[in-house]
């Protein structure tokens, strides 16, 4: 079984989700004694992809940002070139726009959001917003698998490898990026963050978020919030986590003044360690927590900031 993995070039960098996809594809190929080829595009040092275990890198340098149809054309051409019968992408925005097209055009079965290296043709993925797990069988000869971000992780198991220039003509983009509006160039993007400090209605008002931001800064964490908090405009929409916001899987999730409604948990239940700070001992969130503090956020969080500062000073 040979695997072709797509690594997206995002403004000259490989995002974490791309490195996870390569790590996943390389480990999968190794487990079945196959080869793993990566394909990427645009101005970038593509040889670093070898660090994540692939045997070969194809590179179409002339294609900068690409839409889903362009990636589809690029990836299928690269798969044929490398005699792959399996294509791996990240289950990120780009993967979601290209993978379904690839599956149709390539006549391949697809499973999106894989969380572990497949066994045979069976792929493990989360369903019901993380409340359950499904093992899905792909019955077609060819297969497309997308990898859930922050699940398998980045594994630097290899060394830089040779890059082969790859030429293929791709169609013109039909989805055109007109403008990019960055609200905060600083801070850690929430979907990629491995630590997150999140707060809810228990904070009483937007003017009280200073301690949340300060704790996040001391821990090197991103900030997030519950849905009502973004609905009433205390925090920006892109911070809303949960069933109807974004789903995150950080190593550490600290929830302050969030009750832990089932729809909120659906977006954070993949976190490795959950800390809950709530003044109500009956708050449902404690059932999902690894560490809990029953107390007033306005007393507890400043203590945590001081302790985090002291801890950072010893590092």
């Amino acid at each position, binding site marked *: 079984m040979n695997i072709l993995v797509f690594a997206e070039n995002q403004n000259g960098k490989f995002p974490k989700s791309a490195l996870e996809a390569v790590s996943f594809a390389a480990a999968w190929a190794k487990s079945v004694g196959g080869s793993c080829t990566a394909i990427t595009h645009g101005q970038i040092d593509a040889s670093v992809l070898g660090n994540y275990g692939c045997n070969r890198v194809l590179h179409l340098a002339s294609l900068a940002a690409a839409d889903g149809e362009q990636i589809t054309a690029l990836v299928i051409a690269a798969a044929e070139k490398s005699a792959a019968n399996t294509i791996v992408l990240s289950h990120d925005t780009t993967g979601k726009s290209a993978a379904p097209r690839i599956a149709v055009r390539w006549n391949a079965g697809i499973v999106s959001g894989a969380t572990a290296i497949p066994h045979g043709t069976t792929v493990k993925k989360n369903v019901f917003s993380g409340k359950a797990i499904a093992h899905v069988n792909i*019955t077609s000869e060819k297969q497309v698998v997308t990898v859930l971000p922050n699940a398998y992780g980045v594994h630097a198991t290899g060394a830089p490898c040779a890059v082969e220039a790859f030429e293929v003509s791709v169609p013109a983009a*039909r989805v055109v990026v007109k403008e990019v*509006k960055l609200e905060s160039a600083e801070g850690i993007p*929430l979907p990629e963050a491995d630590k997150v400090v999140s707060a809810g209605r228990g904070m009483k008002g937007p003017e009280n978020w200073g301690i949340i931001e300060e704790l996040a800064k001391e821990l090197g964490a991103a900030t997030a919030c519950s849905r009502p908090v973004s609905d009433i405009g205390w925090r920006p929409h892109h911070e809303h986590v949960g069933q109807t916001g974004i789903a995150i899987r950080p190593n*550490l999730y600290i929830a302050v003044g969030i009750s832990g409604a089932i729809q909120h948990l659906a977006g954070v239940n993949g976190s490795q*360690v959950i800390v809950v700070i709530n003044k109500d001992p009956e708050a449902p969130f404690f059932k999902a927590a*690894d*560490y809990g503090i029953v107390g007033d956020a306005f007393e507890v969080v400043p203590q*945590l900031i*001081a302790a985090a500062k002291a801890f950072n000073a010893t590092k």
Partner: protein
Amino acid sequence: MKLLVCISKAPDTTSKIAFANGNTSFDEAGVTFIVNPYDEWYALVRALELKEAQGGSVTVISVGGSDYEQIIRKALAIGADDAVRIDAPETDALSVAKHIADYAKEQGFDLILTGKETINYNGSIVPGMLAELLSFPYVTLASKLHVNGNVATCEREIAGGVEVLEVTLPAVISAAKGMAEQRIPNMKGIMSARTKPLQVITPVAFAANTSVQNFEMPPAKSACKFIAPEQAADLIQLLHTEAKVI
């Protein structure tokens, strides 16, 4: 503007998730079903707003058995003009997308809207497949949508901000939070939904190329370790030495 909104049936967000038949199927006993929230709150409501502003029609389509008519009537009550049910089981994303594409290809829709994913299978696959089958461009995860003539302008959230995307219609667009606000159907809507046209199509079957082998529940969390609020500072040490996450 002729709009098509794809809706799917999902368990209510508070449902207890359990499985039946040796963990091979979702246990529907006692579960209330709803229109998948992304389909209803964002895709359908934005389609209705576009129709209200610019004229045209909103059709909803769903692939599923007669038990799907309850959620189809809900969409009609919210304001869709008519509905189509493709009478086939929802076997996998490919078969669903093929059924919808088969229906849509002769209908001349300007815009096909879907939710960004279903809350039961979390696939995010059907809209992209639909776009490929119809040779339409596809915008994923749009959180804003405006249509001017035959050009749709979308916003999509990216790390630290938004990007503005433009696409020429016809197109498929999947809807994320922000595109519209949930609408509660009123009495008049609920009454008129009963008599709005609902066409049932018996399709040719398509072979699926994936199938769920079995489901399992995630491993149970171990009990929460409580720290007294006066000792809150200890948490930072525990996160370092015990949990090893900082």
